[in-house]
């Protein structure tokens, strides 16, 4: 099946070439980081995780979001999703690979990363995160590949893929729950230490993932002969709407608990993010932008006239994707570290190099996504034509 990927139009190759260029530049910058250490980043003693882990957290969400097409199609036999299920699974594969790359980019001693396997430590949430992330990646690769292959050969997928599909559903929930547990189990980090964190992560994931999938459907429709179907997109947009409302609702619950109880250690972080603390407020405009984007997104999805408008919908999805990205990656990570446990305010701004390396990871993800989507759409075109 892979041979499909090496036959493409000029546009396809230009796009891949552009991605490869970004990857090459980013790799050169990464070599600097590999040789000289994480000093090239904006991270500090007080803000010890930054852009890499932020993007990692967000992309785990995008990966988990794929389950929003898997559940309706496989558990409820929702036929409209038949065409896009494979797109959701392949999106999860690309996102997970980016997640793993972001983790490796963040390590101080990447050459020792297999120590996590050599000295397995069940009390560390990072160990479990590694297990579920790799498990979910493996499941999606196997399922996506086998199902697509079966479609190409016009036979039923092998029976053993069924149990794997069912297992992949709790795994999807699991990857984001465990990722939330990385943060919410830490004493002394008031911003993260809330039981709503995992549900909130999932809600924002089920908004961001499907919103991105809608955008991808538009792109696929534009550049290939394969049509994912307007009805599937409409159903997806309803899912995004509910999930986004849940995300904002969970956040407001958190705001109530924190500001009604007035416990300083919990309040100061949200204060920093939305109003600034002791004159430091680098993230204030970002956080309000995020809120405005998410509320606008809800408005545009709740009203059927806007939601059903084929021209407005992609823009709505872009708003939501950016809004949830700011909320979950920029705000969630910096917000937890500022102020520090000793109540110092050290602000975090990613450096140019850090952003470039991140772009390299994103380009790698997009490259994988492009190739996988090319396989999927070509097979679907073949079968229909």
């Amino acid at each position, binding site marked *: 099946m892979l041979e499909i990927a090496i036959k493409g139009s000029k546009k396809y190759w230009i796009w891949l070439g552009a991605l490869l260029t970004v990857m090459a530049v980013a790799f050169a910058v990464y070599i600097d980081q590999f040789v000289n250490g994480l000093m090239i980043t904006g991270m500090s*003693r007080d803000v010890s995780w930054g852009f890499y882990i932020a993007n990692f957290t967000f992309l785990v969400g995008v990966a988990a979001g794929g389950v929003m097409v898997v559940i309706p199609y496989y558990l409820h036999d929702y036929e409209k999703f038949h065409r896009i299920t494979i797109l959701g699974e392949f999106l999860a594969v690309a996102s997970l690979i980016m997640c793993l790359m972001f983790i490796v980019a963040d390590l*101080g001693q990447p050459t020792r990363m297999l*120590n996590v396997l050599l000295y397995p430590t069940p009390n560390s949430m990072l160990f479990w995160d590694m297990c579920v992330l790799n498990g979910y990646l493996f499941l999606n690769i196997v399922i996506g590949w086998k199902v697509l292959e079966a479609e190409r050969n016009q036979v039923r997928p092998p029976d053993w893929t069924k149990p794997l599909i069912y297992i992949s559903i709790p795994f999807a929930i699991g990857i984001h729950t465990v990722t939330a547990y990385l943060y919410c189990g830490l*004493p*002394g980090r008031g911003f993260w230490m809330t039981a709503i964190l995992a549900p909130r992560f999932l809600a924002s994931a089920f908004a961001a993932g499907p919103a991105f999938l809608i955008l991808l459907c538009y792109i696929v429709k534009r550049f290939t002969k394969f049509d994912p179907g307007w009805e599937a997109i409409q159903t997806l947009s309803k899912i995004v709407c509910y999930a986004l409302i849940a995300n904002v609702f969970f956040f407001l619950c958190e705001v109530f608990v924190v500001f009604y109880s007035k416990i300083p*250690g919990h309040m100061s972080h949200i204060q920093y993010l939305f109003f600034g603390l002791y004159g430091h407020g680098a993230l204030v405009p970002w956080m309000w932008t995020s809120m405005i984007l998410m509320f606008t997104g809800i408005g545009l999805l709740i009203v059927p006239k806007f939601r059903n408008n084929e021209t407005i919908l992609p823009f709505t999805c872009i708003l939501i994707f950016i809004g949830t990205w700011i909320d979950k990656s920029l705000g969630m990570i910096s917000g937890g570290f500022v102020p520090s*446990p*000793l109540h110092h305010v050290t602000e975090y701004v990613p450096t140019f190099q850090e952003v470039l390396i991140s772009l390299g990871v994103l380009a790698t993800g997009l490259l994988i996504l492009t190739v996988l989507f090319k396989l999927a759409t070509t097979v679907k075109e073949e079968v229909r034509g």
Partner: protein
Amino acid sequence: MIHSRRSFIKAAGVSVLAIGAAPAIKAVAASGSGAASLPSKTRRPEAFSAKRWGMAIDCRRMNGDIAGNIVKACRKANNVPDFSHKPDEDKYPGLRPPKKDQELKWIWEESYHHAFPEMEDEFLADKFKSMPFLVTCNHCKNAPCVQACPTRATFKREDGVVMMDFHRCIGCRFCMAACPFGARSFNFRDPKPFIPEINPDFPTRSKGVVEKCNLCAGRLAKGLQPACVEASEGTIVVGDLEDPGSEIRALLKENYAIRRKQELGTEPSVYYIM
């Protein structure tokens, strides 16, 4: 064709298993013989030992000079880099300037407000407002950093010292997020150029690993007091918290002492006598 490929893979699988199992079999076979001449690894006779090491800082007698000396002594004994030190241009040409907020520290001075942020008080006694409070790793009984570490590079020793195995650390910095006391530092770069004078009795660190106070475990093993205690003019006492007869217990029995963020239940082993 398919059959022969399949059987080849099978055979290959079995051989890989066999090769993999060989060391284990060898080890089992070896363990049965020659027990008499086996080498042994033990403590040094002069080593200090305790059931649970703890520290008491006498804030009543602490002042800026002593605190400064303590911080300096710790840096020197443990090769903790100092980013204000100007690196030797000949030995390390073309170094990029260090970033102040990526600095490393094992023990350092804080004001009351930062050392005990949740105990802030509008009407705090004046003497506490200007007093330097030395903060460091608390060697918690229930250490969140130990729980978080995915490789057991940070671990709790039987005697209560929370240790770092620099060889094993992958630099994920999960422990830094987990520590409620900000006690941990990460080597964002190679620290050696910023060590004014390398102490040969303790290794330096490489870039990419986390470090923190280890209660001078290497000195305790040689029967020496930690460097901070030595420089403290009696304001810091390190001893066995589980031994009712120890000096530290006597101090805690007679004086009012507090610990940082007690409400988190990590059970810090560093006490502040007020």
